[in-house]
């Protein structure tokens, strides 16, 4: 039933769900950034595996773009984090609750 080609996809789905769970449950902003990276890399893994299964290179080439974007995203995220620390004296999201959502 589950062939060899499915295994990377199952792993990708697992990583994506783990990343999403981390982002939704944890309060430490650094850990949140790690969770976001995990989600993006799960998508990358899925792209590469599909690309191989489809016998094309499109997906694998696109992964390079995504890796670059993920690096830029981390840089922006960390600078926002520094700003958050300067204002609240903590990087935990439960300290920053001045807005009511």
């Amino acid at each position, binding site marked *: 039933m589950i062939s060899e080609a499915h295994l990377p996809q199952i792993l990708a789905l697992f990583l994506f769900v783990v990343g999403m769970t981390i*982002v939704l449950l944890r309060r430490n902003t650094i850990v949140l950034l790690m969770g*976001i990276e995990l*989600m993006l890399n799960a998508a990358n893994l*899925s792209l590469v595996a599909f690309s191989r299964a489809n016998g094309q290179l499109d997906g694998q080439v696109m992964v390079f773009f995504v890796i670059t974007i993920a690096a830029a995203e981390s840089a*922006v995220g960390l600078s*926002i984090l520094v700003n958050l620390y300067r204002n609240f004296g903590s990087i935990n999201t439960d300290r920053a609750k*001045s807005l009511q959502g």
Partner: protein
Amino acid sequence: MSITELFPYIPFTDDGLFALVPLIILGCGGTLSLMLAPLEKKGELISRLIAMATLLASAITLCLQSEAQQVVGGVLLVGAKTSYLMLALHVVAAFALFLLSGEDKKESLLAESSPLVIYALCGMCLLISSHHLLFQFIAIEIMSLAIYVLVTMRRTHKSSAEAGMKYFILGSIASATFLYGSALIYGSTGFFTLPEIALAPTTVLKTAGFVLVIAGLLFKVGAVPFHGWVPDVYEGSSLPVTGFMAAAVKFAAFTVLANVAAAGFADETGLVIKWILTVAAALTMAWGNFAALTQRGLKRLLAYSSVAHTGYLIVGVIAAGATAGAPVALYLIFYAFATLGAFACLQTLAPGSDDVPIEALAGRGLTHPFTSAGLTLFLFGMAGIPMTAGFIGKYLVFGSGVTSGHVPLVVLGVLTSVAAVYYYLRIVVSLYMKPVESGHPAPALKFGAAVVTLICMATTIYYGLAPANIISFFEKL
């Protein structure tokens, strides 16, 4: 298989290269402006002037191109419609720069705010013309990364830091969801380009991918239940940035949502997408308007009103189905001018970027007759009162909804927009029928805000009275 077969080289035609010129100008101009921004003397002024010149140059090259064509092997589809939408975005960005020039000293914004607006615009233009899921992801990120920084730009304000962090985290989840969804669609169909995806056979995997992609985009446009960031981000960022986001980000995100949904509607996947969008539209219209009724702060009220408008626009997307959807584009243009104008008026009437209660506007109708008249007009436009462009937009969107047989949604839309008149009128009543309160000083009218208010007023009235030209232009495309 040789390397040239694996990576076939697609030579650019002259026309294809010319179609990319606006994007290239925006990218280079933004970078130049960014490099000159830290100059000690006049760095701010120089970077802003370069940003303006970039906008002008890119807008001129946009005006020169007309014929519809595919660029870079079908990644970008450009034509008269995308050129027009991009021009509207250029105008919005120019207005944002005008408004920023009055505000940046007071809010201690850095000089880098002007290049960031240009970068965000570059991402939006790429987003509007792209019909390739991965390039849409890249464009969304170019736009969002610039906007995250713009939101956090009021570095000394706690609300800004918190809003930026919230927006960043939630926005990144949405982007990652979009990316994973496009990976699943690619796995099922073998394509990233939307026209080919629309023709591919329906599978469970493709449907799941579309659900994830649509969920990511619904976040970007701020639809319920993904709207949590909207009021916080609107409250935390400085007024020009809020205006830019409300007008331009929603504009670009909705255009791509309409494109993706149109590809999904082509086969049985469309049933699932339609169901999701219908639920989102109903919830967004109901909750956006209901929450706006209870708000005290002006910025939060406008934030929830923007959520409510998202609901009306989703009705337009559903009604358009697999077609291009002229009503949505027109509504977006009209709404962009009304909302940007409203934020320009607030900049004069309620100084400072911290949220103020509606009562702070009391009696401003007498002390600031021009700006108050402008704000009243824009609020009427958002409420959809006849003779304004907002009415034409609502009329077209709801009309297309009835024609395509979505009567219950349209009834809900009309009922909620009647309720919305109440909270828009609350602001107008405060402007004209309350005595002036002491303790809320009003600054003089600034040049930038006055220009933006005047042009937005002219647009709102002109398209409200004589919409025939622009409607026939969009329906022909």
